[in-house]
């Protein structure tokens, strides 16, 4: 389920002012100021959130950049997986659109 439509040209980012993290072992608890919800992120999803906090991405750029950020090969981290991960962050309002017509 998506939180809304998406386009290849839209740029996305995570805004660290909108959440607060706390690491407990292998998981990171993230408090979302906008929704008031607490999320539990594993090592993969927190890595994506952290990457998106660095700069803005289109979906394609994100799929291209994430494997290297994770230190794995592109085969191990295909675009479909990245997009679904993105959808999970989008669904709970942890990422926001930042430009791109």
């Amino acid at each position, binding site marked *: 389920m998506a939180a809304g439509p998406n386009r290849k040209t839209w740029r996305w980012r995570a805004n660290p002012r909108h959440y607060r993290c706390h690491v407990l072992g292998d998981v990171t608890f993230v408090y979302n100021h906008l929704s008031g919800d607490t999320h*539990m*992120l594993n090592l993969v999803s927190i890595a994506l959130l952290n990457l998106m906090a660095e700069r803005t991405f289109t979906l394609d750029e994100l799929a291209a950049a994430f494997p290297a950020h994770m*230190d794995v090969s592109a085969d191990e981290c295909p675009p479909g*997986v990245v997009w679904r991960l993105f959808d999970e*962050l989008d669904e709970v309002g942890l990422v926001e659109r930042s430009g791109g017509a």
Partner: protein
Amino acid sequence: MNEPNEKDSVFLEKRRQLLKLGAAGVPMLLTMKASAAQPLHSALDCAITIPSGMCIMVGSDGAAWISTRYNYDGSKLTNGKVKQFKSASEYVLPAGSVPARYRPDGNCPTDPCSSSGGSSGDDDEGGHWGHHSQQESGFAALFDRLTLTRTAQADDTLYASDWGHSGGEGDDSDDGSSGCPTSGGDDDDNHDSYSSNHWGSSDDNHDDDEGGSSGSNDTSSCDYKIYCFDSSTQFQPGTFIDANGNWNLSGDLGLYTIVAAKYGEYYGTYNNFPGVSCMLSIMTYLNNQ
């Protein structure tokens, strides 16, 4: 954020494992919420015991009759049997009480249904109050009054009987009449009469079981469907609630849960419908979530 060293091989291996799970569709993010599905709260973990021999007859309009005294043999329903069931029923719920999936589908293998459809049930019993073409039904005024009475009663409870001081709150002179006549005492009486005045008292039918004759030219009825519980059955309605607090009701126990909840909604606990207390504690809990 103190992220662990990303070159750490154990750490990397964990990420790889998780990525594989992610590729298999496992969510990588969980949103924490208090889960109503866990029988965590004392209000949720009560159980209902359905008495043995209880049957629920559902009309095509969603009305329901509930009886523990009708011996249903599972054979095809006829208008005579329907009539007998109605007179044997201890509890009645009005049209619209039971969701569509529990209602008879109206597909009669042997026709007569399609022609007699709407008229077979609602012209004699007065049980079908919610018929769509209410103008003809003659009950329109009654609905009106009934609804308003319910509204006013409920409202009265809020304003009059919560915390005894209510009478004194009109302590200013701007309202004309002084102290509201709302003592706790007659409150109870009001409620009692309320409960017995409306919706008809089916107890009068007590001994009428034999009354309805199932005549020989009795036509079959597919405007009704009967569900029975042969032996006494215990279950926890709280288990029907999912993690989001939604009801996921299915099967005969789902129907029973709906009927018990409806009963509580209409009548409170006055008549001790089996399980109504349990339903009400659950509903109270959920409504406060």
